[in-house]
C-alpha cells in the first residue's frame, strides 16, 4: 500500500510544484496560448496591439499601419468578413469587384486600428473565458482595462479555416457586433451607389484615417 501511495504522492507533488512554477513564471496570456488555439489567436492580437501602443508615438500612423497590417491579415479572416458584410449581393459581383472590396475593407480596417491605437497609458488586455459554439466556432471573451480602471468588454468570434483559427467578428460590450454594423453599412452603400461606390467610400475613409483627420 505504502509502495503504491508514495509514487502517487510524489507525482501529485511534482505536478503541483510544476503547476505552481508555471503560474509564477508565465504571464496570463502565455497560459492562454497553451490552452486553446482560438484563445491563442486573440492573445497574439492583444500582444501586438500593446506593443504597437507602446511604440505609437515613434511609429506614427504610417508606422503603426505597416506594423499592424501583417498581424491583422493573419488574425482576421478579412475576405470572409467582407463577404458576409456584403451579403447576398456578393453573388452578383465580378471577381474584380469582390477583390477590390476586400482590399479596400482590409485597408480601412487596418487604418482604423492604426488610428485608434495611438498611445499607451497603462491599458491592460485580459482574456476571461473561451466558449465553444455548437458549429465549432469559439467565442473568446476579453476585457480591456482602461487607464482609469474601467473595463470595456470585447468578445471575439473565432472560426477554424483550414488549419488556422481566425477572428471573424468582434462584439463590443459583449453585444454589439462589428460585422452586423458593417453589414448594415455595406448594404446601404451598395444599394445607393453600387460596388464602385462602396470601394470609393472605403478608400476615402481609409485615406482620411491615414491622414490623421
Amino acid at each position, binding site marked *: 500500500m505504502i509502495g503504491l501511495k508514495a509514487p502517487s504522492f510524489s507525482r501529485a507533488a511534482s505536478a503541483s510544484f510544476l503547476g505552481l512554477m508555471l503560474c509564477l513564471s508565465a504571464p*496570463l496570456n502565455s*497560459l*492562454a496560448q497553451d*490552452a*486553446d488555439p482560438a*484563445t491563442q489567436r486573440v492573445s497574439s492580437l492583444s500582444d501586438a496591439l500593446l506593443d504597437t501602443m507602446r511604440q505609437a508615438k515613434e511609429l506614427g500612423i504610417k508606422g503603426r499601419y505597416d506594423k499592424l497590417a501583417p498581424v491583422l491579415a493573419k488574425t482576421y479572416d478579412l475576405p*470572409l468578413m467582407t*463577404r*458576409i458584410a*456584403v*451579403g*447576398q449581393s*456578393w*453573388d452578383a459581383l465580378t471577381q474584380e469587384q469582390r477583390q477590390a472590396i476586400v482590399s479596400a475593407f482590409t485597408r*480601412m480596417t487596418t487604418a*482604423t486600428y492604426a488610428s*485608434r491605437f495611438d498611445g499607451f497609458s497603462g491599458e491592460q488586455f*485580459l*482574456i*476571461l*473565458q*473561451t*466558449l*465553444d*459554439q*455548437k*458549429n465549432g*466556432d469559439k*467565442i473568446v*471573451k476579453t*476585457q480591456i482595462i482602461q487607464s*482609469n480602471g474601467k473595463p470595456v*468588454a470585447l*468578445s471575439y*468570434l473565432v*472560426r477554424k*479555416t483550414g488549419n488556422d483559427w481566425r477572428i*471573424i*467578428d468582434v*462584439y463590443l*460590450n*459583449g*453585444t*454589439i*457586433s462589428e*460585422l*452586423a*454594423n458593417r*453589414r*448594415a*453599412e455595406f*448594404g*446601404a*452603400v451598395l444599394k445607393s451607389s453600387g460596388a464602385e461606390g462602396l470601394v470609393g*467610400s*472605403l478608400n*476615402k*475613409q481609409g485615406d*482620411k*484615417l491615414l491622414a490623421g483627420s
Partner: protein
Amino acid sequence: MAAVALAAALSACAGGPSYAPDMLASDEPVGTPSAAIATASPATTEATADVASLPGNVASLPGDVTSLPGDEASEVHDPMEKMNRSTFERNQRFNRAVVYPVAKAYINTVPEPVRNSVENFTQNLSEPMTFANDLLQLRVGAAVATLGRFTLNSTVGVGGLFDVASKHDLPEQSGDFGQTLYVWGMRKSPYLVVPLIGPTNVRDLFGTTVDVAATIPAGGLLPTQYATAVNNVSVAGTVTTPMSKLGEADQLKQLEDTSIDPYIMLRSVVQQKRQAELQEALETSAWTAGRYGTNSVSTATLLKTPALNTKEQDLVPDAVSGVQ
C-alpha cells in the same frame, strides 16, 4: 418634431400593451452581465446558447449566399429614414460645431475623478426610477440590486459621488419605462432621431417622457428630473449621444471617423445595444422569463443576436433568434 413623435407614441399606446398571460411563469434568473464574465482565468466551456453561430462554413455554401445572424439592415424598423437622416445630419453639424469642442475642453480641463463623480451622482439620482421600472417589469433581482446600489452609493458613496456598489458586485441595472412597455408587449417601434438628443425610437421616447414626468410629484427636484432624462436617454440606446454624456462624445466622433455611412452605423449600434437591454428584460422578467428566459447565462448579456429574416433563418438552423 418631438411633438409629432409623441403623438405617434400616444396613438401607438392607445392600442394598449398586451399583458403577458403567463405571469409569474418562472423564477427570475440571477445571472448578471458581470456574473457571466466573472471568471478571471481563461477557461474553455460549452456555451449554454449558440448565440453567434454563422452558417457552417460560409466559403463552402453552394449558393455562395453569405448570411449573418443579426442582419441588422433588414431588422431595423425605420420608416421615417428620410426625416431621421436629415435630423441626424443637423445633429452632427451641431456636434461638430459645439459639442465636440465643449466635450474636448471638458475632458481636458476637468480632472477624471471629478468627471467620474459627476457621472456617478447623475446615475445615482436616476436609480429610484430604475428601481420602479424593474418592479413594473417584475424583475426582482434587478430591483433588489438597484435598491442595494442606491442605498450603498447614497451613504458609503457620499451621496452618490462614488460608485462603491459596482465594486461590491452590484453592477448598474437597466430599467426604464420604454423597456417596461416592451416587456408589457409593445415590441416593435419605429426608429427615431430626435433633434439634439439623438437616436431612440418612438416607444422609448414616450417612455423617457413618462419617466421624467413621474419624478415631478416624487420630489420635483430639477436635478432628479435631469438625471432621469440623462439616464433614460442614454439607456434608450444612445450609447453615443453627446448631449447626455459629454465624456462619451469622443465615441461618437470615433464612430463617425471609421464609418462609411455614419447614420446607418449609429443606427446599427444603437439598435443592437438597445435590443440587448430589451432582451435582458424579457429573459429576467417573471412575466416573460418562462417564454424567453430559459438560459442561466442570458443570451442578451452574453452576445446579442437579433432576429434573422425569414430567408436567412433557413441557413442558420442553430442560431438563437431574437424575439420580435
